[in-house]
């Protein structure tokens, strides 16, 4: 009896539509309910990188952490749109350039010394963010087609190898490449950087928008060498791809360290928990996890590294010394890349 009533009710088309509308409103309502307070983290880093560390932190401390993923610049733009109403406590970026931009925009608060003392290097003098991992720029190559002894010791010599005409891959639209060019402008000056770009352009390099398809292109024989980051090569090697990484000489701009790090926002309502979170990320456990799973270099001592990576002391000293926040001058680099016509 009841069932047939229900069926009859459903048969009436007007009622059916009303029911559907009620359903949608309920579903939306369920989605709109507020969150419990805890920590809110904005990060430009990937989920696989962030989530395991966050879950462990939640389990050990009982502090709930909400994570918002995006790209560095997107989140920085969102933070600026949000202003003082931002719910974010921590900004965790992929590049020191974005952190520098956040410092310049007055978004980050100074950190306690207990925190900034932990990393062995790369801490900015004003202590508004801490480094969490580093990645090194390298030259990926095909061991089947290139002899390692033929590879240059400085990236500045790369354009003088005409044999690789049309066989070099690079990623002008990708942030790591742009950071590398910014570093070259800081170290070698505007004129030499422009000359380097022009000479490279003469070799007709193939441009990619991101690194994985470029390494894929080395496998497929489209190119022989490619300017990239060390972990992309290491991850493809782990998958059994025929590629290898060549490190330029210590101190060469081709060995630039890409520093990832995080800071606490001035608008944070929970700076103590935020500091505890950063401290946790600098702990042995998380640093070891990142080295194992993601093949990035730690910034604290005592982490065991995969044989596919450089030893810790070498890796830390590989990069040229510089003000890593200077990488925030992306605008100048983009202008140069546009003028030379590679972007």
């Amino acid at each position, binding site marked *: 009896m009841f069932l047939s009533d229900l069926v009859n009710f459903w048969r009436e*088309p*007007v009622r059916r539509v009303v029911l*559907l509308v009620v*359903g*949608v409103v309920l*579903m*939306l309502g369920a*989605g*709109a309910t507020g*969150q419990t307070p805890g920590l*809110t*983290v904005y990060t430009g880093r*990937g*989920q*696989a990188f962030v*989530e395991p560390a966050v879950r462990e932190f939640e389990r050990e401390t009982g502090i709930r952490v*909400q*994570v*918002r*993923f*995006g*790209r560095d*610049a*997107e989140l*920085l*733009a*969102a933070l600026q*749109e*949000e*202003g003082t*109403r931002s*719910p974010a406590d921590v900004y965790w970026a992929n590049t020191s350039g974005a952190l520098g931009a956040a410092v310049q925009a007055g978004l980050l608060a100074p950190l306690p010394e207990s925190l900034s003392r932990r990393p062995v290097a790369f801490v900015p003098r004003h202590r508004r963010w801490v480094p969490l991992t580093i990645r090194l720029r390298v030259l990926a190559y095909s061991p089947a087609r290139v002899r390692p002894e033929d590879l240059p010791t400085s990236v500045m010599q790369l354009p003088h190898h005409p044999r690789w005409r049309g066989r070099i891959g690079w990623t002008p*639209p990708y942030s790591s490449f*742009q950071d590398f060019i910014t570093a070259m402008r800081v170290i070698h000056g505007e004129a030499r950087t422009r000359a380097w770009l022009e000479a490279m352009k003469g070799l007709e390099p*193939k441009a990619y*928008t*991101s*690194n*994985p*398809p470029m*390494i*894929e*292109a080395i*496998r*497929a*024989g*489209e190119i022989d060498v490619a300017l990239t980051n060390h*972990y992309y090569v290491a*991850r*493809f090697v782990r*998958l*059994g791809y*025929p590629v290898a990484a060549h490190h330029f000489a210590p101190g060469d701009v081709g060995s630039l360290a890409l520093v990832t790090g995080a800071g606490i926002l001035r608008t944070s309502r929970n700076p103590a928990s935020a500091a505890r979170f950063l401290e946790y990320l600098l702990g042995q456990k998380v640093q070891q996890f990142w080295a194992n799973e*993601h093949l990035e270099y730690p910034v604290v001592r005592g982490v065991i590294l995969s044989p596919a990576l450089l030893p810790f002391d070498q890796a830390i000293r590989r990069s040229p010394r510089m003000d890593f926040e200077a990488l925030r001058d*992306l*605008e100048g680099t*983009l202008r140069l890349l*546009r003028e030379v*016509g590679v*972007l």
Partner: protein
Amino acid sequence: MQAAAREAPPRKPVPWLLPAPAVLVAAGIFAPLAYLILRALEAEPSMLREVVLSPRNALLLWNTLLLAGGTVGGSFLLAFPLALLDVRSDLPPLLTTLVGTLPLAIPEYVGAYAFLAATGPGGTLEAVLGVPVPRPSGYWGATVVLSLFLYPYAFLNLRTALRGVDPSLEESARSLGYGPWMAFSRSVLPQLKPALSAGGLLVAIHALGDFATVGLLRYETYSSAIYLQYSAAFDRTYAAWLALLLIGLVTGMLWGEARVVRGLRLARTGIGAQRAPRRTPLGPWRWAAYGYALGLGLASVGVPVAVLGHWMLRGPGTEAGIAEALTGTLRLATPTALLAVGLALPITYWSVRYPSTASTAAERVVYFGYAIPPLAFALAVIFFALRTAPALYQTLLLLVVAASLHFLSEAIGPLRAALYQAPPRLEEAARSLGYGPLSAFFRVTLPLLRPGLLAGLALVFLSAAKDLALTTLLSPPGYTTLAVRVWGYASDAMFERAAPHGLAMIGLGAAAVGVLIQTERAR
């Protein structure tokens, strides 16, 4: 005076309920537009000359137009034979429906990456076929790959229209002495005009807005420039200008499409019920038709699934958190699809049944929401939410509203094609029998619109499930979807983790397609 008024045909009064949703939608779409203009006005004239009017930008614009044109052509080339086979031949409709809709479950960027991993020496396809397959790249690569994943938009629109064509029309043409091809092209093709233009517009807008696929295939377009400005350069003013120029381009296309469908009257005028379309036995051509459908399915669905499966075998196999991402996708895509179709129905009905400058403009406005690059749209929504309703900021509700405004136009095409073919007379007859306007619509017209409604629901659901740009910027903290996971893992070169999420997404899309087929069969 009074005599003249009596002679003029009585003008149907528009029920007030119809324009109301259109006004809401227009407000939701024009507000972000105002934001874009506000941003664009901050530009210095020197910057404008240097960047916006540069020869490089002109080249990018040209590239984009070439890509849009090629992709529309390619999509129809692939979809038209398939839609014909589906409606008019004795091939099993399940096969053609699956091949025609399943690629929608595969995000273009995943498809493009799969092709890169599958081709060339040492690729997945070489392991299967024994010989390396040439790698797609540049203009032709981007056109072919985009067409392979966008042709379902053309297919679904074409099929809805082909099914609504009354076979007696073609028979009349035959009885008047036309051969089969002439009869088809004179009587059936004109009926497909709304479907061709709506489907073409959808494909073109996707191609114009795509940045991920063209990026992977190394073809530079206008949208990749916009993406670069938002993601890498911290420059929102320049990006706003680029977005406005792209919107200008789409405006031109919308105007062109409006001219195509203006004044069309395709509804049956005869009495009696419409028959189902006639199915032609293919005879010996059957195998060629099978080959075409299967080949297309293998290229568009087989390759990505094979590559994802291959990655999955290399990895650890289990993936925690996949249920969470699946729930996230459902919580976004389901309400978005329902809301979008609910809004699209009155707007389409208004513009088809009460054609006027205002109603046509309302339908056109919907396409603007689609034409605004999603990244620009998302930032604009953040801006507005924070200034007008901060409580809504970073809620699923806001993301759903933004997504349904953005994807609304995908529901318009099939609905409009179905409405053009639902005779207004039936509704008028119901009214004359004493039903009010609403119940006449719900009892008589709505059941006729069912294929269009379902197609609209399915299209918006799948688009929302694949969405990346809106979800990344507007999602509440802690919220994730399958699409966000696939993209994140793949750009970190962690393919063994991306694979299960990608496969789950394709499974979800297949389930949506399955529901669609079941409901259609139950009719």
